[in-house]
């Protein structure tokens, strides 16, 4: 039983925290899902990186080749420009030697590489097909190792070259080179310029990137940076995926645990109600002349068993003993005290004790000092034939009697609740009712709500006299109308009606 006033917040169901074990075994499939996205991110990023690196490398080599070609063209032009000098030197030498004018038909003939001693390139300037003509012969001394480096200050610094006689790049025809080993390393390009009746072939390669070092490094930079970014992105994706996964996991766990909580709550509530109903009478005794009906309803916080009870005891000749009681508090302590009181009343009634003595004796069973419990109990002895009710109250709410369509609460001198004081005395009040009268006893869970206790009692009275229905219907209707949610307390209503 409880006393509720307007400040009381709406009762809410207790929240039980339950840890629900989800084993890690079920995650192997989920891990594939976690790795899927990062793997795709990694592959895509690596593909993009690889493509960029390849494009930049391709561009780099194409640029280098083009630059090398330009250099080579310059070198070939220089070479072509230098060769007529040889011819004109020989021509002027011939003129001074033979006092003959070198004819336009005179041709430069290349003899070839001569050795030993030394390594020389021989060439002659002669008039072809004329036996009495003149021949001017010249030689160019070549380094024995045929090495000649390009000067640092030259425009061609950074390039390697090999100069061959003739158009074939044969080692025996090599005139000069900057490199100790041939062929030249790296990509090469060549140009052949006419030299007399032969030709000179210039092969070049670049020792350093011609466009600077950045284009050379760019593919590597792109590749390495891209790979790092790809790994970073996939790790980031992995984390995000895992975070999302764990959020989903948590959500599903919460879902499971809240449904588990609901289930446990419902189960506990069901256990409490089952226990409570087990402690209440199975069937009310039937005796001629009167009809009885009772209902119990658990409070909104019904996970705990309450302390309300009702009972109807057949007293034989003396009629029926109706009992409604309410033990303070909730849970098993209240329920066990309730059971003890209920069976004690049965026993004392069987011994023939009148209600006032029964209530006095009950005070020996319950002590507020020892157990911090007290109980309010209403006993009513009904004589069906005489239509009298003798009512005794231990601090309980007064019963409502409807007689001739008028509802009235019986004025009682209420004694102390059971458990306050041993040896407490009680007085009974006897009333007579008209035929067809209805007697209603109840616990405070039914009438006390957000407003005044008296207003609750008035509402019960108004509801009980609103229309004329059968007793079971009336009891059910009052329970439905008055114990509106959420009442934190359990409620009992017990009714008796004279059928004649």
């Amino acid at each position: 039983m409880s006393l509720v006033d307007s400040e009381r917040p709406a009762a809410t169901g207790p929240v039980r925290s339950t840890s629900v074990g989800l084993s890690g075994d079920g995650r192997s499939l989920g891990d594939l899902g976690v790795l899927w996205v990062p793997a795709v991110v990694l592959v895509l990023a690596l593909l993009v990186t690889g493509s960029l690196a390849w494009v930049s490398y391709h561009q780099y080599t194409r640029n280098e080749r083009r630059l090398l070609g330009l250099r080579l063209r310059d070198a070939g032009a220089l070479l072509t420009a230098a060769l007529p000098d040889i011819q004109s030197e020989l021509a002027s030498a011939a003129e001074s030697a033979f006092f003959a004018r070198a004819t336009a038909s005179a041709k430069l003939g290349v003899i070839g590489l001569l050795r030993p001693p030394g390594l020389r390139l021989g060439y002659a300037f002669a008039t072809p097909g004329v036996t009495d003509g003149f021949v001017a012969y010249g030689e160019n001394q070549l380094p024995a190792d045929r090495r000649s480096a390009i000067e640092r200050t030259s425009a061609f610094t950074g390039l390697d070259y090999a100069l061959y006689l003739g158009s074939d790049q044969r080692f025996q025809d090599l005139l000069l080179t900057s490199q100790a080993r041939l062929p030249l390393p790296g990509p090469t390009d060549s140009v052949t310029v006419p030299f007399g009746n032969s030709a000179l072939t210039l092969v070049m390669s670049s020792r350093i990137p011609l466009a600077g070092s950045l284009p050379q490094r760019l593919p590597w930079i792109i590749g390495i940076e891209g790979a790092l970014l790809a790994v970073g992105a996939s790790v980031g994706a992995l984390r995000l995926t895992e975070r999302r996964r764990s959020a989903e996991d948590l959500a599903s766990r919460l879902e499971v645990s809240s449904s588990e909580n609901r289930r446990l709550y419902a189960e506990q509530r069901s256990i409490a109600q089952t226990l409570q109903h087990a402690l209440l009478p199975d069937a009310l005794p039937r005796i001629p002349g009167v009809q009885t009906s009772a209902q119990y309803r658990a409070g909104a916080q019904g996970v705990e068993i309450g302390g309300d009870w009702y009972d109807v005891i057949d007293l034989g000749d003396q009629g029926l003993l109706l009992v409604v009681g309410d033990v303070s508090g909730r849970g098993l302590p209240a329920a066990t005290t309730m059971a003890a009181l209920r069976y004690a009343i049965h026993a004392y009634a069987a011994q023939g004790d009148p209600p006032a003595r029964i209530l006095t004796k009950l005070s020996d069973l319950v002590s507020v000092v020892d157990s911090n419990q007290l109980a309010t109990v209403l006993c009513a002895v009904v004589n069906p034939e005489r239509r009298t009710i003798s009512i005794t109250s231990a601090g309980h709410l007064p019963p409502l009697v409807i007689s001739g369509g008028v509802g009235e609460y019986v004025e009682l001198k209420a004694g102390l609740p059971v458990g306050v004081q041993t040896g407490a005395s009680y007085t009974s009040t006897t009333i007579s009712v008209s035929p067809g009268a209805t007697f209603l006893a109840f616990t405070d869970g039914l009438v006390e709500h957000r407003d005044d206790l008296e207003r609750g009692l008035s509402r019960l009275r108004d509801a009980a006299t609103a229309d004329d229905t059968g007793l079971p219907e009336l009891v059910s209707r009052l329970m439905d109308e008055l114990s509106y949610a959420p009442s934190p307390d359990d409620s009992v209503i017990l009714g008796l009606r004279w059928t004649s």
Partner: protein
Amino acid sequence: MDQLDAAADPLVTVDVATDGVGTTIVTIAGELDIGNIDAVDTAVAPLLLTRPERLIVDVGGLRFADSSAIALWVRWAASVDEFELRNPQPLLRKVIKMMGLAEKMELDP
């Protein structure tokens, strides 16, 4: 006036004052029910062990009380010579009267 922390229950506060000549005043405010009754009882129990002659429980600030609270006061009343429940709200007053406890609680008529 000492404020006893009733098991850190945010719903109820308990203050205890003693005049030194046998009267103890316990002021309870907030909500008192089966859920925090033990905490309040534990907080006040040492004072009752000193057997004060007169115990005044001021419930003017109590917005809600259930029957466990009434049982607690009845028990306190049993452990002292004089007991007075002071300033109960109208509903609480009616219930105590209806339960036949008005005399026990020394309520004003």
